[in-house]
């Protein structure tokens, strides 16, 4: 709000001007509020529908559930083919986040501190992996993971998602690490710290926020990705998003159940986002996701 007040050009002048300028400031706020309403309406509609029975959904439009029911959620939490989808998704997303961070941390340090042969080209090559059109690459992906015996395992999806999450993690972490002055490294080495000890006890705590933001982005991109996850799994590691498409097409549109499953896919993201809310904007800018 303080920024808006500073922005208002007439705020030093006469009261009339002040009133006009606050009115103008609120124009922008109105745009923001309208946009958020526009964002929330479709989500609200899905949440609303998830608490309705199918009879109510199909019998007419109701703005809130008149006969609220938890049946849709009960189905999901009691049927293993549904809830195992969630467990699978959370499992491979977590695995991917851990792998991505573990390999990206040293690499980001190297990029932020050293020049070496091919550094810029490796960096660009990493980024191009986000750009391959997936449709045709899916077939060799499937073949490759089948050949190495990883098909339909959580680690397969976690590894495949590294393709785009590792470059992203390197990029965000590099941004945060470059903000730490070199002198700190040099001082630690003079004090006799070994590289691993310095990295673990001095450097990592200094870029805590960066690690958090990176973990958030890895989580997010692994969570929303569906094509690779669906291609590399069949039963044992099937992600929830894939479960949704299958069940819906088979059972002739159980709208309430579909909505409930959708709501449950939003929840983990909403929870995670809360923990990094103050760093989101910075992470977006650094990560250039």
């Amino acid at each position, binding site marked *: 709000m303080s920024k808006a007040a500073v922005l208002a050009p007439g705020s030093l002048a006469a009261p009339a001007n002040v009133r006009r300028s606050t009115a103008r400031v609120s124009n922008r706020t109105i745009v923001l509020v309208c946009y958020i309403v526009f964002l929330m309406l479709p989500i609200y509609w899905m949440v609303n529908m998830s608490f309705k029975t199918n009879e109510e959904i199909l019998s007419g439009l109701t703005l809130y559930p008149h006969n609220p029911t938890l049946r849709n959620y009960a189905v999901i939490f009691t049927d293993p083919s549904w809830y195992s989808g969630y467990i699978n998704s959370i499992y491979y997303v977590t695995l991917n986040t851990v792998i991505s961070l573990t390999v990206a941390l040293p690499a980001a340090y190297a990029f932020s501190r050293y020049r070496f042969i091919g550094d810029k080209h490796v960096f660009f090559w990493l980024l191009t992996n986000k750009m391959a059109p997936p449709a045709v690459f899916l*077939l060799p992906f499937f073949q490759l993971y089948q050949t190495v015996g990883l098909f339909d395992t959580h680690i397969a999806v976690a*590894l495949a998602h590294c*393709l785009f999450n590792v470059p992203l993690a390197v990029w965000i972490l590099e941004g945060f690490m470059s903000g730490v002055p070199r002198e700190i490294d040099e001082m630690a080495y003079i004090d006799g710290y070994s590289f691993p000890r310095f990295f673990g006890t001095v450097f990592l705590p200094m870029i805590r926020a960066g690690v958090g933001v990176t973990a958030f982005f890895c989580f997010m991109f692994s969570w929303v990705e569906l094509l690779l996850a669906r291609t590399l799994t069949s039963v044992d590691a099937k992600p929830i998003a894939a479960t949704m498409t299958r069940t819906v097409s088979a059972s002739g549109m159980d709208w309430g159940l*579909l909505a409930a499953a959708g709501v449950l896919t939003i929840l983990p993201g909403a929870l995670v*986002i809360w923990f990094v809310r103050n760093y989101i904007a910075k992470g977006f800018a650094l990560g250039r996701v």
Partner: protein
Amino acid sequence: MDKVQDNRAWFLIIPVFLIVAFSAVVPLMTVVNYSVQEIFGPGQTFFVGTEWFEAVLKDDRLHDALVRQIIYSLAVLLIEIPLGILIALGMPGGRSAKTSLTLVLLALPLLIPFNVVGTIWQIFGRGDIGLLGATFRAIGIDYNYTNNSAHAWITVLVMDVWHWTSLVALLCYAGLQSIPPAFYQAAKIDGASKWAVFRYIQLPKMRGVLIIAVLLRFMDSFMIYTEPFVLTGGGPGNSTTFLSQYLTQMAVGQFDIGKAAAFSIVYFLIVLLFSFIFYTIITRTGEGEKK
């Protein structure tokens, strides 16, 4: 910051290099191999040279899909970039609860799995059970995204705006946050108009993030697949069949793997060219700021 020349840094890169190369190199090579062959099944392949590339480059339906794709990507950019800037300008500053709440709400659509985004709009847009569809019907517009091409196209576009404008807004917000308050005070003393503040202080500071936003939105909208697939399945007719959809129809529907592979490579080269140009601009802007 001056970096030290030391090739031993490669040892720190090796894990990343191996893990990405595992998933990247073999599939890429395989697609290149496919693109010069007629594939009938495992072990039954015939070398055809560059015929697939020629077929792809002279395919009229593909040209249509490409034109549709470019129009769509331009529409996405023209709506999302200005709207994102506008939203970012309206965001509350400082570390208040209001800021946190706004950030969380804005970021929410970015965390929804792509096919669930499609599902949400499917539910929202239907004339019988969806709020949007029903509202249109109530005010007398015969809205139906499943059999009216124009409605389908607009719905996919609105869905994309809904899904991704937040990204542009958050990037711009981060750019705005980097402006020291002193700039605004100076502008106030000079009696600068709001437009002048925007044009000469805020816009230049957002330049870097805006290039990134344009690049990302261009790339992602150029490769959009899952959301329209769930919502419209590419129809009605071909109205929402974008490049990725067409590619998938070719590879999975008609099992024209060779042609689809050739197409993927052309597609990849186009994206690579744009990325390289944008990447060069981004990194050079960064250097300019440091000097």
